[in-house]
């Protein structure tokens, strides 16, 4: 089969011509034949709910950053600007669909019902991870770029072999698409026609590297080369993201093989709280993207539909306040890990050498107590 791709001009401005969109930045809803049918059920109350979700995770993010500044967290990876990508996709999933995230998917975790205590534990440095993946059908945060996509491919192969109706989804950034693991994951998923959705949040930056350092074309086009069904959508448009995710999930559930979504969005904050974006990023670019804010456009659209915006903002603020209070409460009540946690769970059954190290070390620490000196 011959495929012909349109020529890609890296200097051409990005916009609705190069990705699918349902609500434009000014809040106008326009017809989108590829996506409309997938969000036909989203009425005003449903859209208000999505708005509140986005407002909540925006606050979650602000709290995460603040808690890091106060020394309560060791590090935080902000999601500001990526609310629509995370809520739109997160709310499209069924409960038994399984998620393999990177480290930035706090919003997806929120959709999954991960509680704040569990969400913050890793960022505080109190535990290697926060939650039991099987309780929320979401794997723990992945820090090695791209590694989780292969786990997702394997999980989806398992779903297929088991004849399950569930699907898997994996999240990663634009930078990750350069990793061999991500290519290999697409090979496996396609080769076994596994029910897996690859969800790329193209937030334009991999720390200091612009997306152009990873690809000269569109990321979604690369996936097409692996035989995946692809959607390239406005990642700041919650309806477009939700529609594409629902469509992709439906596609993979029919056994037609994996799908790939490129959500074109923007990381408004720093890469992490340890990063200084002023060294590499233009302030003008930020302004440009601020005008495409995912929350503002939903508000403007709801306004045009005659919704009571004042009341909506009140509701979303009180939901966000409650979430923020939960986060702060989680931090103040989180116990510090103990020395036993150091040696726990390295293996699933006792290990002689490690037992010995644990015992020797606790005797060592006890010795300080006896001597009443030392620095421990």
């Amino acid at each position, binding site marked *: 089969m011959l495929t012909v791709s349109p020529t890609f001009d890296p200097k051409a401005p990005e916009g609705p011509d190069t990705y699918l969109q349902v609500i434009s930045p000014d809040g106008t809803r326009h017809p989108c034949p590829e996506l409309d049918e997938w969000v036909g059920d989203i009425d005003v109350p449903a859209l208000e709910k999505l708005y509140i979700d986005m407002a909540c995770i925006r606050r979650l993010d602000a709290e995460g950053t603040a808690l890091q500044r106060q020394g309560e967290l*060791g*590090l935080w990876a902000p999601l500001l600007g990526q609310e629509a990508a995370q809520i739109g996709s997160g709310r499209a999933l069924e409960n038994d669909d399984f998620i393999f995230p990177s480290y930035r998917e706090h919003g997806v975790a929120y959709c999954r019902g991960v509680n704040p205590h569990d969400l913050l534990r*890793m*960022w*505080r*440095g*109190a*535990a*290697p991870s926060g939650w039991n993946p099987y309780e929320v059908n979401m794997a723990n945060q992945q*820090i*090695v*770029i791209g590694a989780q996509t292969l786990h997702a491919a394997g999980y989806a192969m398992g779903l297929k072999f088991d004849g399950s109706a569930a699907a898997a989804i994996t999240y990663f950034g634009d*930078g*990750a698409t*350069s*990793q*061999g*693991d991500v290519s290999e994951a697409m090979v496996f998923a396609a080769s076994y026609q596994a029910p897996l959705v690859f969800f790329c949040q193209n937030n334009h930056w*991999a*720390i*200091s*590297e612009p997306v152009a*350092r*990873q690809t000269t074309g569109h990321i979604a086009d690369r996936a097409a080369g692996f035989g995946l069904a692809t959607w390239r959508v406005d990642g700041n448009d919650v309806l477009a993201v939700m529609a594409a995710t629902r469509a992709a999930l439906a596609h993979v559930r029919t056994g037609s093989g994996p799908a790939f979504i490129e959500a074109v969005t923007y990381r408004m904050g720093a890469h992490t709280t*340890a*990063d*200084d974006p002023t*060294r*590499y990023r233009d302030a003008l670019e930020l302004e440009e993207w601020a005008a495409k804010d995912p929350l503002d456009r939903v508000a403007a659209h709801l306004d045009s539909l005659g919704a009571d915006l004042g009341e909506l903002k009140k509701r979303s603020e009180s939901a966000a306040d409650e979430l923020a209070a939960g986060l702060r409460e989680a931090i103040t009540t989180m116990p*510090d*890990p103990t*020395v036993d*946690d*150091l*040696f726990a769970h*390295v293996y699933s059954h006792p290990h002689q*050498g*490690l037992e010995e*190290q644990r015992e*020797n*070390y606790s*005797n*060592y620490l006890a*010795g*300080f107590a006896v001597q009443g000196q*030392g*620095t*421990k």
Partner: protein
Amino acid sequence: MKTLTFSQALNTSLRSAMEHDSKVVLMGEDIGKLGGVFRITDGLQKDFGQHRVIDTPLAESGIVGTAIGLAFRGYRPVVEIQFDGFVYPAFDQIVSQLAKMHFRSRGNVKLPVTIRIPFGGGIGSPEHHSESPEAYFAHTAGLRVVSPSNPQDAYTMLQQAIADDDPVIFLEPKRRYHVRGEVDTDLVPDPGSLYNAQVVREGADLTLIAYGPLVKTAMDAAAAAQDEGIDIEVIDLRSIEPVDFVTLSASVRKTGRVVIAHEASKFGGIGAELAASLTERCFDHLDHAPVRVTGFDIPYPPSKLEHHHLPDLDRILDGVDRAMRRTGDLLGEEG
């Protein structure tokens, strides 16, 4: 002489290597405009251009694999791996390709590639940001593995590593990046001295061997032991592969006791190799079996627990007590 931080010494060293040899190119993630996440390459892209300071795609296997290709073509790539835990995606290219090409081509292909890795813990980072992978590389024939512990060595050893025709894994103790020290940038070292250990403190009672991040801790421990009447000789290993057994054995024959400290896990670690080799070489001179003070045999723990995992002054002194057969050692391990 200049006073530089460890990281400035590395930056200055890269700059002189690039000025001196136009075939030296730097490669890595975020090393251009950002200057690397630790700013070791700060300003270099501005001065040398994008083809000499190459901001690469986010792909470690790709970075090392293409560095091999560039070296094939006569370049001397200096690769930056962002953090220790991210070298593993490149592991195959390093151990199966980089390490073996000279042997495979019967000496016809030289791969003067230097792989800089900020390594070790103590900076409160999340998973994969604090690892000590030296044993994996030291175990692979064809690679040389070194780790400086002070700004002068950071400067000099990096010059030597880049000039070496063999691949060198260059481990930078990241928690020492901000330490200051005198650096003589005019020093022209004998190329082979990269692989020499250095006695950094003389002593008569016990030999304490450390490298990279723990040399400072070892020196502090020796000073503390002096107050208790134990005279410790401290050796900065500098080269992890090859090991300078001439210097080590001479010291151990003199003192009769040896303690080895490193952050990496104990089992199958560099300490095991040093202990076994020194026992073989100096058995008749030893008054006690070599003692290892190391990280535990666990994945690197979350940051709130890392102070337990990393050998500190007290744990090193406890190891010293054991090697000295002093009663009251706390760890209670068999000597």
